């Protein structure tokens, strides 16, 4: 079954064409065969009857003639298809083990022409290298002499090349026509699957054109309705989340000012730190939601300057962060989006790995950025899970470190918007490596 599956064409169109082709070919070959059999049988019968009649007539004519004129007359009665001559003794010997075909022929000759006396008739094949095409025979006359004959009995071989050629041409024609038709039928289906692929990706929701056969049209309508429902649902949720995040800023702004009137300086500082954290969460949530809908224009920017700003800021905040690499790396990108990605990756390394080494390599076709830390790393099983939104690995990481759980999600989406990739791996020497590849397309 598996082998059969592999032999089957993969596409619906291919399968339809295959079924069409096999069916038509079977029908075509079958009718061709039947036609040939019928023609052959009819031709054979006609020929055999003709042969028998001519032999009977020749036998009667020659038997009436005097002996000296018999051979001359036999020659005179000969044609291309039947050569006759008269002898006193038979030139054809009785073959003891005569083949079934000869026997069948002998009895058929007798049946076809009732007055044809087949007693004593000797039949055999000519020794011309083409056994079965030249029939030799001897017919006894009443006085014991013989009428010998040789006949081109069977039809010359049919021109099978022409049959094969016409069959092939027809098959190719059917195949091409079938492909064309099936492509036309399959187009709305392909449009549907393309739309399903695009759905959920970047860009606005595009309805599938509702065309083609009824089944496909219904599928397209159902798909469009589903797309609309999902889109509305996501839009509603996004709006709700954005509204809550946005509205939280006013109470945070008030709290920030209120903290200024707290007598206890220590408490004021603690409140400020909490508010910083809340604000960072709201910022990243809004950045995440904004990334769904907005796209920043592209322009050439220096990645090194961007990374240096981030490293300097982290170093100023007391973290151990260092940059290594060239002094410039120009890339056409969306700078704010990409800076946020690097910022999140460096923050992650600082927060969980105690510091970061950022190494940039300019490979011409692409820019590689490695962000390494010396922290505990991530269990291999969780390497993909950490990219999911609002996902935090609390089992291995300190809950007190906070964060929104969106950092890596935002980073990966930003890099993917630039056709790049982010990969996380545990370094052999310990610690986590975030490997960013940005193509310069």
């Amino acid at each position, binding site marked *: 079954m598996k082998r059969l599956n592999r032999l089957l064409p993969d596409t619906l169109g291919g399968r339809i064409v295959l079924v069409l082709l096999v069916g038509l070919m079977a029908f075509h070959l079958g009718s061709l065969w039947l036609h040939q059999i019928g023609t052959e049988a009819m031709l054979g019968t006609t020929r055999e009857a003709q042969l028998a009649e001519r032999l009977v007539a020749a036998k009667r004519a020659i038997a009436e003639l005097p002996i000296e004129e018999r051979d001359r007359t036999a020659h005179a009665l000969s044609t291309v298809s039947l050569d006759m001559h008269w002898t006193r003794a038979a030139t054809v010997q009785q073959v003891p083990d005569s083949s079934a075909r000869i026997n069948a022929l002998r009895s058929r000759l007798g049946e076809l022409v009732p007055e044809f006396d087949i007693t004593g008739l000797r039949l055999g094949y000519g020794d011309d290298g083409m056994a079965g095409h030249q029939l030799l025979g001897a017919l006894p006359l009443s006085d014991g002499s013989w009428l010998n004959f040789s006949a081109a009995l069977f039809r010359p071989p049919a021109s099978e090349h022409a049959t094969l050629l016409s069959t092939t041409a027809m098959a190719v024609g059917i195949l091409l026509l079938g492909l064309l038709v099936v492509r036309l039928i399959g187009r709305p289906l392909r449009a549907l699957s393309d739309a399903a692929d695009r759905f959920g990706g970047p860009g606005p929701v595009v309805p599938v054109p509702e065309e083609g056969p009824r089944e496909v049209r219904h599928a397209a309508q159902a798909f469009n309705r589903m797309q609309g429902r999902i889109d509305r649902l996501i839009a509603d949720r996004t709006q709700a989340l954005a509204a809550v995040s946005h509205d939280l800023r*006013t109470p945070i*702004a008030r709290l*920030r000012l209120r903290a200024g009137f707290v007598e206890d*300086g220590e408490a004021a500082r603690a409140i*400020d730190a909490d508010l910083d954290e809340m*604000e960072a969460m709201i*910022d990243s949530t809004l950045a995440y939601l904004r990334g769904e809908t907005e796209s920043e224009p592209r*322009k050439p920017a220096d990645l090194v300057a961007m990374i240096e*700003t981030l490293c300097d800021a982290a170093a100023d905040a007391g973290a151990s962060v260092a940059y290594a690499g060239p*002094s410039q790396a120009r890339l056409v990108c969306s700078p704010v989006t990409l800076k946020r990605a690097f910022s999140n990756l460096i923050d992650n390394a600082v927060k969980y790995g105690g510091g970061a080494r950022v190494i940039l390599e300019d490979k011409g076709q692409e820019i590689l950025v490695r962000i390494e830390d010396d922290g505990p790393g991530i269990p291999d099983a969780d390497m993909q899970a950490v990219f999911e939104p609002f996902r935090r690995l609390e089992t291995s990481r300190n809950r007190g470190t906070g964060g929104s759980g969106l950092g890596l999600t935002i980073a990966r989406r930003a890099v993917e918007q630039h056709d790049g990739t982010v990969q996380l791996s545990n370094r052999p020497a310990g610690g986590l490596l975030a490997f960013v590849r940005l193509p310069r397309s």
Partner: protein
Amino acid sequence: MPAARRSTAARCRAVTGIIDVMAPDSLPQEAHILVVEDDGEMRTLIAKFLRQNGFRVTGARDGREMWEVLAGASVDLVLLDVMLPGASGLDLCRALRARSGVPIIMVTARGEETDRVLGLELGADDYIPKPFGRAELLARVRALLRRSRGEAGEPIAGQAGERILFAEWSLDTRRRELSAPDGTAVDLSGGEFDLLLAFCEHAQRVLSREQLLDLARNRMAFSGTERSVDVMISRLRRKLEPTDDSPSIIKTVRGAGYMLVPPVKRGA
């Protein structure tokens, strides 16, 4: 300049965020600030906070109240929220700028890039993203008041032109963006931008570390020391002179300070 220098220590503490040790404002007379904010609680808190720091404050709920206050009293600075019912903060900003040269700080939602750029284009002198820290608010108010009073001979940002050109580099003061001669955007930290702007406003003049610190502070909440000026200049240089054969942009003048080498042009 003497006034600014006198208050250096006080501001240095102020921007670290410890309010209880803040010295009263050292400006010669009590400045009058108009806070336009529709959220009553927020308006009260801003007013209370600014009063505590030695300013005279009047609150206004919307555009109508703002015009009423402006008609009746002289105002030194307007703190204008973008999100207002009725006429939006941006509309008010444009109308206000058309009538007077009063310094304006726009309060924008954090992350709303367009509001910020639009606000500055419509004539606001500075912006502050909401929610803001107390130190940041105070530093921006003080810096703008100081600039508007012409201390250190500085022009006000609103009048400074949008683009500053030097040695084919371009500094966009509204978007706070630096572009290299080949058009590549070069990222700057807030402090680096303010320092570079200070250099550009005093091009081809030797500036001491102390002067640079003061100039940068007038721009925003720059919480540095003279030593951090050295660090920041080395970072700026790394970005402005990335390779060994890059032309010299910032020169060290031994014993005196630093100088921006190329001449500066202002463009649209």
